[in-house]
């Protein structure tokens, strides 16, 4: 088969405009496919850090925007395998104004539990103590502090929107975390928020972060928490932190399904486009099939030559597409996101191989029927074909 390669390649290059167009449409489709698969891969296959594997997040089953009663925390703590539970609250609000450079997450947390829950947060001891002792203290991730040119002791005012209060903090600590999201967020004492709120709005919690004492217990805790509140007016939904990150992103729908349907649609479309082009170029060459057969080429060899051509074109298109996808993922990396996995988005080798495989399959599938028919045309009939 290899010795037919020159003919395969020269055939592929025969109608340059058509081949270039096919390669381009293949390239664009494979770029989308590659990017989608890379995102899918980043979301669902990336190895999460071990601490993240131990952490679970409990939220209101109805919506992330609805709170849960504070006492749920105590109930969760009694579940076997739970090492620590911490209440957290997304504060929202406005820092200075709504410009993008002033957008960052502000979270009310419990300072005495925070560092147990997030052992990978690196902060000097005296700063940690200051955060735990001073009610209006806050701490910020290194990246955020640098971006806002904050120094220890700076006063930071956040205007409330979801909560009807303005909070003024003193920056008491700057930490380093492995987690990129944390590095770009601000944390303050939930107690401080509670006391600023009117009585009616106290005692509510946005999410509980749970630390399991062993990864083996994680699935069980996940189920135990939710069944604990199954018959309560406010039900919960508990998932691992990495899964929670996704559901946060997927407020609007099922990311998995969306990604997969885009991939499916792209594959199907390119299959049709490719099938059409191949059918055209095979039709034009039936006469040559007759000539090759006269020289002693078997139907199988001819089938191989035509399929090889289709696969070659598909693979070149796919490589172009993967190159473009790699560039696009650099663009995604540079964009501001709240999702860690996207920060390191890249076309992994496994995704590249999968894309090339898909492209080869598309080439084969789209060419098979016309190639098979052409290769089976009786010689005399093929030679009479004049198209």
């Amino acid at each position: 088969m290899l010795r037919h390669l020159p003919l395969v390649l020269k055939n592929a290059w025969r109608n340059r405009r058509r081949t270039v167009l096919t390669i381009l449409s293949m390239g664009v489709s494979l770029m989308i496919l590659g990017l989608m698969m890379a995102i899918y891969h980043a979301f669902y296959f990336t190895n999460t850090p071990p601490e993240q594997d131990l952490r679970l997040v409990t939220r209101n089953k109805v919506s992330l925007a609805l709170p849960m009663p504070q006492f749920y925390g105590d109930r969760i703590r009694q579940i076997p395998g739970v090492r620590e539970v911490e209440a957290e609250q997304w504060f929202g609000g406005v820092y200075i104004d709504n410009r993008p450079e002033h957008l960052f997450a502000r979270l009310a947390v419990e300072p005495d539990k925070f560092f147990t829950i997030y052992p990978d947060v690196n902060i000097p001891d005296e700063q940690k103590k200051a955060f735990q002792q001073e009610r209006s203290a806050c701490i910020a991730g290194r990246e955020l502090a640098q971006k806002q040119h904050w120094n220890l002791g700076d006063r930071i005012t956040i205007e409330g929107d979801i909560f009807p209060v303005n909070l003024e903090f003193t920056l008491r600590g700057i930490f380093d975390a492995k987690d990129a999201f944390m590095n770009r967020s601000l944390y303050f004492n939930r107690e401080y928020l509670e006391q600023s709120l009117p009585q009616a709005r106290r005692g509510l919690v946005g999410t509980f972060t749970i630390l399991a004492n062993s990864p083996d217990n994680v699935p069980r805790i996940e189920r135990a928490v939710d069944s604990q509140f199954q018959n309560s007016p406010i039900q919960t939904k508990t998932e691992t932190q990495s899964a929670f990150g996704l559901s946060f992103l997927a407020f609007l729908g099922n990311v998995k399904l969306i990604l997969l349907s885009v991939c499916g649609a792209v594959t199907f479309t390119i299959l049709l486009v490719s099938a059409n082009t191949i059918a055209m170029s095979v039709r034009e060459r039936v006469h040559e099939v007759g000539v090759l057969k006269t020289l002693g080429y078997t139907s199988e060899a001819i089938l191989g030559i035509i399929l090889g051509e289709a696969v070659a074109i598909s693979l070149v298109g796919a490589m172009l597409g993967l190159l473009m996808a790699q560039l696009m993922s650099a663009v995604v990396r540079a964009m501001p996101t709240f999702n860690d996995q996207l920060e390191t988005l890249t076309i992994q080798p496994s995704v590249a191989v999968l894309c090339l495989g898909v492209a080869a399959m598309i080439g084969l599938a789209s060419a098979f029927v016309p190639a098979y028919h052409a290769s089976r045309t009786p010689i005399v009939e093929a030679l009479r074909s004049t198209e």
Partner: protein
Amino acid sequence: MSETVIETRRLSKEYIRDEFHITALQDVDLEVKRGEFVALMGPSGSGKSTLLHLIAAMDVPTSGEIKVLGQDLRKLSDRAIARWRNENVGFVFQSFNLIPVLTALENVELPLKLTPLKKQERIDHAVTALKLVGLGDRLGHYPRQLSGGQEQRVAIARAIVTDPALILADEPTGNLDAASAEDILHLLARLNQEFGKTVVMVTHDPHAARFASVVHHLEKGRLLPMNGNP
């Protein structure tokens, strides 16, 4: 006399198109001996090409027997026939039928790609064949860069490169001017005389037929009885 290379008995071919039955060949008894240069003549539609295709096993007869180079063609599988044709038959078309995207050398190399020969051996053979037809200086030319006569010579080189015993040519000079046609006829005659190839050539042209040692006439699918050589 010498060995028989083509032998047909009551060979018939019928084409069925829709409800029409077209008898392209009927009860043809043909015998060709090794080393002969046979011209097949006859009006258009008399079945000349059909007969040539049956000899080359490019088509199957409706009835009758055909034995070429001692081989009963009806007994071979498709794959075996392809291989047999590659080794034993060189076919020359009226319209040259070179592959336009391949150079002269690559075109001539095509049949050799089906043999176990190594790349360098294939090239050596192809170059030899092209030199034989007088195109040793046109190896890298594409068909569109060649004249009709040159294209037909490349096609002949392609037909002889596997050193087949039998050369079948279907109006090889039909698309050529008189001078080029003359060249091609001389070339075929030389292959016949110097290299001992058996040649069967279809032609309309009585002048071309003079290069042949035997002339057969077909009419309405029947082979006319020979009434002495010209």
